[in-house]
């Protein structure tokens, strides 16, 4: 608990008390020297005459009296020495008329109509000079009263007008303006509290709002002159004092969290008892009931004070302390009023209780502001806490995400490296081993140690048996060429960009064409326009290229062909058909001058590891590979259905209808393009363009 709240509480309370003291000090100002306060009167009642002391409260002197009596007052000469003289009646009720030396100054009806409830409004009346005698002036006050409406007559002032005017003004401020001020404040704050209770669903504010409105009603109800009071109104008016205390007690206890069900029940019971006491008072005209009601209310205040003090002590709660102090002040003021009105029966005295509501309103306002500030701070803290937690969660997520992505990246790099290593090992490695073997063979055949034949220096190596060396050297060159092609293919497969399969095939052709040409095989390129845009990912492209290369290598090694066709066609569903066809059989037949064999000799069937490799690659692409003889030679056909190897399933516009042959069957010998007819296997081999 910070030291600030108690400071504020004390400061607020001190200023409130100061304000109240100022009001009372003004009301209890010293009387002017020449004005006289009349404290004695003759009471004329039922034809009898007896002296009474003023103030005369009927509740004390004659509780059962109802109707009209007459007070006769002797005006001292000294008070009338400085005209204009005036008469000041602080309080008289419930209705009265005035007559000076038998001359009516004011009839009862005039008073009622003019100023509202007469017992709550002071009266200042100029005494007409014509009606005044030299001495022995007599003032008659005809007073009619109703029991339980506090009838009676206060002391009466007579003296110079200018001396009595300030007294009247002060009392009027207190009795009339003060009452309306209190009523208005209580109404506004009560309405606000009820709204707050409705919107915030808080019982505590409902209690305060109800109490506040009840007090406002009580103030205005006692202030307005509505004629004779109804019994019900009278009962409610008296009970409202106790109810106000009950509601305020509920509010205070709820505000500090002490409104247990038992406490609520007890207070409600007291409210009912208070209603009964008020009813009994009216029904049996028993002032004792009203005294009991007021004492009970005071006891409630004392008990509440005790509870609040204990709570303030135990919980170190500034709200409880503030409420306890407000209760203490209210209780003290109530006790003072009780003493003045119920014990001393000072009819003209001022009531202080009505102003306690201002103190309570101030406390409520303070508590509201305090609660608002606290909840705002709590909300801000909560918000900050939430933001911090969200931020930390976000950072955590971000870290997790980064870690995952890093892992994925590392995994991708690893698998890519694995793939490259495998490709290198399978492709390049194998070829280099073959090249080494060939070198060894050449060395053996040449019978010299392995020294580069054309070392720098320019002198040629000793002549060897060229014919014996020609074949292995040619093979060595082919193998090394293969190595370059392998390296190139592996490097190409690193490209992340998708590119048309046709272009990859074109580059492959560019690499292998010299080898083919050297082997006497002419490659005929037949790419259908519809297939020229088909794209594959780099690693899939590599598989296709390897298959084509293997097929072309087989053509060189085994087929003894003069022409090889590479055909790429698009299927209607978006798939691709790639075929490598040679004219080996026809070529062989024409060379050997023998008819085409009825069956394919075993020697022509190139299978083994090469074919198995091609099939494995085709499978991993999601396609099928067919390898077999056709009328002119050998055909290797790779069929990639749509969706395989990253091919789109979409049917591109302009795709040619599927070929008439069933899938998988090698393409017929004659090429599809008419202008390629002269390049068909049957045609003689055209001369190399140079």
């Amino acid at each position, binding site marked *: 608990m910070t030291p600030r709240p108690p400071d504020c509480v004390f400061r607020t309370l001190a200023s409130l008390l100061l304000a109240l003291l100022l009001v009372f000090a003004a009301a209890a100002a010293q009387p002017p020297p020449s004005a006289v306060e009349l404290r004695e009167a003759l009471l004329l009642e039922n034809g009898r005459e007896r002296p009474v002391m003023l103030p005369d409260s009927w509740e004390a002197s004659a509780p059962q009296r109802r109707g009209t009596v007459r007070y006769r007052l002797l005006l001292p000469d000294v008070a009338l020495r400085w005209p204009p003289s005036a008469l000041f009646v602080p309080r008289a009720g419930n209705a009265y008329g005035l007559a000076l030396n038998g001359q009516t100054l004011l009839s009862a009806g005039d008073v009622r109509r003019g100023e509202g409830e007469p017992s709550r409004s002071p009266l200042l009346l100029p005494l007409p000079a014509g009606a005044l005698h030299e001495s022995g002036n007599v003032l008659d006050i005809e007073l009619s009263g109703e029991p339980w409406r506090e009838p009676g007559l206060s002391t009466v002032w007579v003296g110079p007008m200018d001396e009595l005017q300030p007294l009247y003004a002060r009392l009027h401020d207190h009795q009339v303006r003060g009452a309306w001020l209190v009523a208005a404040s209580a109404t506004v704050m009560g309405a606000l509290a009820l709204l707050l209770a409705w919107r915030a669903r808080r019982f505590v504010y409902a209690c305060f709002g109800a109490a506040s409105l009840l007090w406002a009603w009580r103030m205005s109800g006692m202030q307005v002159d509505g004629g004779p009071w109804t019994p019900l109104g009278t009962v409610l008016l008296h009970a409202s004092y106790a109810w106000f205390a009950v509601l305020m007690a509920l509010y205070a206890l709820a505000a500090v969290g002490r409104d247990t069900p038992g406490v609520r029940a007890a207070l409600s019971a007291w409210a009912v008892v208070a209603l009964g006491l008020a009813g009994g008072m009216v029904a049996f005209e028993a002032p004792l009931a009203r005294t009991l009601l007021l004492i009970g209310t005071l006891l409630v205040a004392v008990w509440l004070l005790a509870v609040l003090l204990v709570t303030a002590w135990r919980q170190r709660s500034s709200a409880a302390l503030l409420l306890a102090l407000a209760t203490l002040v209210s209780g003290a003021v109530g006790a003072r009023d009780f003493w003045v009105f119920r014990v001393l029966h000072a009819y003209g005295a001022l009531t202080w209780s009505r102003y306690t509501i201002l103190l309570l309103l101030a406390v409520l306002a303070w508590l509201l502001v305090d609660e608002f500030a606290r909840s705002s701070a709590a909300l801000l803290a909560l918000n900050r806490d939430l933001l911090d937690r969200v931020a930390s969660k976000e950072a955590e997520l971000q870290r997790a995400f980064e870690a995952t992505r890093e892992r994925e990246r590392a995994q991708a790099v690893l698998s890519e490296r694995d793939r490259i290593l495998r490709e290198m090992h399978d492709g390049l490695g194998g070829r280099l081993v073959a090249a080494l073997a060939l070198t060894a063979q050449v060395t053996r055949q040449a019978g010299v140690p392995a020294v580069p034949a*054309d070392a*720098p220096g*320019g002198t040629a190596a000793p002549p060897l048996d060229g014919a014996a060396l020609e074949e292995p050297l040619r093979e060595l060159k082919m193998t090394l060429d293969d190595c*370059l092609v392998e*390296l*190139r293919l592996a*490097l190409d497969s690193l490209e992340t960009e998708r*590119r*048309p399969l*046709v*272009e990859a*095939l*074109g*580059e*492959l*052709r*560019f*690499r292998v*064409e*010299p080898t083919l040409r*050297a082997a006497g095989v002419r490659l005929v*390129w037949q*790419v259908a326009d519809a297939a*020229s845009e088909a794209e594959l990912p780099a690693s899939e492209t590599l598989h296709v290229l390897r298959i084509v290369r293997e097929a072309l290598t087989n053509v060189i090694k085994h087929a003894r062909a003069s022409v090889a066709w590479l055909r790429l066609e698009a299927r209607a569903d978006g798939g691709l058909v790639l075929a490598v066809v040679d004219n080996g059989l026809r070529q062989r037949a024409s060379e050997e001058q023998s008819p085409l064999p009825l069956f394919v000799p075993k020697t022509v069937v190139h299978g083994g590891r090469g074919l198995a490799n091609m099939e494995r690659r085709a499978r991993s692409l999601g396609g099928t590979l067919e390898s077999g003889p056709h009328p002119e030679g050998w055909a290797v056909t790779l069929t990639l259905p749509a969706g395989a190897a990253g091919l789109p399933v979409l049917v591109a516009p302009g795709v040619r209808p599927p070929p008439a042959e069933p899938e998988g069957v090698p393409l017929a010998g004659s090429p599809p393009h008419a*202008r390629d007819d002269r390049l068909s296997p049957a045609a003689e081999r055209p001369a190399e*363009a*140079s």
Partner: protein
Amino acid sequence: MLKVYLVEDDPLVSKHVRDALEEAPGIRCVGHASRLDQARSELAQCRPDVLLSDLGLPDGDGTELIGELSHAPAIDGVWHPHILVFSVFGDEARVIQAIEAGADGYFLKGCTADELIRAVEQAARGESPISPAIARHLLKRFRDDGYSDSGFREPSFGPDTAPAPLTGPMDLEAPSRSDTEVNAREHAVLRLVAQGYVSEEIAERLLTTPRQVATHVRNVYRKLQLGQRARAAGQANSRPNWA
């Protein structure tokens, strides 16, 4: 007699090339340098018809030498060699840089003697070799450089409408759009090359001769050089002068 000058620092390759050239009838290797500065000092005297140059040399890049030769005024107004650069696989970007600098083509390191002789003879005739990879790079280059708004259409198979080969690098004063953009015909050639067709097949498909196809390729190279120079000039003037 065709005079050839060789710039190559690898003695093995150098020997292989010179041997191949000397054996060929009608071709003579008039000089050989293994460094750029040596080549610079000897070229003006030798005045070869064909210059064969490697790209990576001990004292610089062959592209520098090619750029100097192409930008310098032709000696005596007549001499300007046909330039071929050595290429190993996978260096298409460097080859295209060399072509932009003024090279007329390339040949593969490690090719057979026959192929080398053929490349030299073709270059001397004004034909330029091309590979699918280079064609692909060129297509991408012309597309990326914003040439596509007028030049790229499907090839038409009408009569050969290709413009005559440009006479040389001298008529550079005001490169027009058609001087720096490939036309439909040249685009068709590039596309077919990229798809794997060789020049004989392309000629057949486009109803023209292989030689004409090679000329198209050389024109494409020339346009690449002009575009490069115009771009450089445009950068210098802060505004392209054909825009």
